[in-house]
């Protein structure tokens, strides 16, 4: 695709801008910022990936993955600011997700150990883990705030913090995993996943594209479960102090 052709896709940006202006939605500034950022970020990533793929250096691969984890952590932690140490908790979760998934993929030779496979797959799995962490933290903090009475009831009957918060924890883990599971139920019927579509457009064999997509969706399931459960179990103890009291603000 030439740059002239690519520039025509800006029509897709003009449509929401026009609608936002006409309906006074006030989204023009955010739309422009998002457009400019996505162009700059993707162009930079494109050139960086080209460089990393050509060098095939393990150092650059690790550096790319580290950057992804740092960016995802900084983004996800905003939703759990009231939870002590949330930054390292999310970072640790993302590292574990990356190590477990890549360990299985590379250790069992499911994909070749090259930058061309490791980096895009890491991006998808870390990105999903970030979204799962955000969904979990959003739900968990809201659940805890709205059910302080029930939490204090269980504590006051002699329950431990883990018993007191068990319902809110499991509800939040389930709620954050539901979108991943539900979207997989309709995959291929309602939506064609981005990676698969990209490969097909790029000229790859559709069956091979599907095989890689299956690999990714299975990986996403592990990612979803690991992310919600790890962030949850690392977070809930910090909502209580050593006297088993729930802290004032969550």
């Amino acid at each position, binding site marked *: 695709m030439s740059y002239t052709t690519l520039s025509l896709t800006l029509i897709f940006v003009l449509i929401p801008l026009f609608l936002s202006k006409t309906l006074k939605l006030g989204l023009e500034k955010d739309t422009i910022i998002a457009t400019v950022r996505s162009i700059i970020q993707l162009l930079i990533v494109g050139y960086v990936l080209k460089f990393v793929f050509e060098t095939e250096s393990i150092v650059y691969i690790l550096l790319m993955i580290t950057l992804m984890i740092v960016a995802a952590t900084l983004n996800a932690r905003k939703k759990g600011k009231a939870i002590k140490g949330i930054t390292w908790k999310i970072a640790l979760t993302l590292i574990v997700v990356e190590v477990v998934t890549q360990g299985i993929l590379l250790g069992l030779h499911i994909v070749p150990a090259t930058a061309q496979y490791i980096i895009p797959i890491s991006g998808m799995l870390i990105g999903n883990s970030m979204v799962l962490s955000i969904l979990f933290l959003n739900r968990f903090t809201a659940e805890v705030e709205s059910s302080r009475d029930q939490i204090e009831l269980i504590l*006051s009957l002699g329950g431990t913090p883990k018993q007191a918060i068990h319902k809110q924890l499991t509800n939040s883990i389930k709620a954050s995993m539901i979108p991943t599971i539900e979207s997989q139920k309709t995959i291929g019927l309602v939506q064609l996943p981005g990676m698969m579509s990209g490969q097909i457009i790029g000229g790859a064999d559709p069956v091979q594209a599907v095989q890689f997509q299956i690999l990714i969706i299975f990986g996403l399931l592990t990612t979803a479960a690991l992310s919600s459960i790890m962030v949850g179990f690392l977070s809930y103890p910090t909502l209580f102090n050593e006297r088993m*009291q729930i802290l004032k603000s969550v």
Partner: protein
Amino acid sequence: MTQFHETVIKFENVCYETEQLSILNNVSGEFYKGKITTLVGPSGAGKTTLLKLCNGLYSPTSGEVYIQNKPINSYEPTTLRRNVGIVLQSAPILKGTVYENLALPYTLQNKKFPKTEAIKFLNNVGLDESFLHRHAEDLSGGQRQKVSIARTFINHPEVLLLDEITSALDPSSVNDIEQLILKINQKYQVTMIWITHNIEQAKRVGDYTWVMMNGQLLESGETNILWNNSNKYIQNFVSGVQEV
């Protein structure tokens, strides 16, 4: 006269603050074994905070709370809370049957609660066996509060903290709950601290009364301190509440 009673809970210069507010300011006083002490005072006086300091749901910012002459922090929290039970105004009910709610104190200790025991506790609070398998969420306010009292009492607490447990109930249920609490107090010699906005109720049920205002203990003593008190704040509070 008060010095002849055994002290169960003692507050010594207790302050409690949040980041923005001072909730309790230098509160000192004692609660006596087997007696009912009513806590009265306007909203925001710090009454509920004081109650939650008694069973370790909160800890003082400064000062000390003693339970049976030992600092509260020397008790393991879960043991302390089973021994100092609290019944909340909202009577929080968990989804499930009345039996599941009553069994909660046992479930938390990984023990099975015998149904015969559950029926005994239901009968004690004036509810019959037919309630056992009813959905707790379908109960009336008075019935919920009775289940809530029974559930707290299953731990056999020596102290019972009651946070405005009749404020949302109709007069008939108020009378039922008052009689139930008095029965528990007399039969089991349970020490009780009872927050109420109702001065007449404080008079009916209380042996002792603490009057609180703006986080301070204005007055404490036998319940008749509420009447013929020289303190203008207390006079105003009592007459104001009675007028309402």
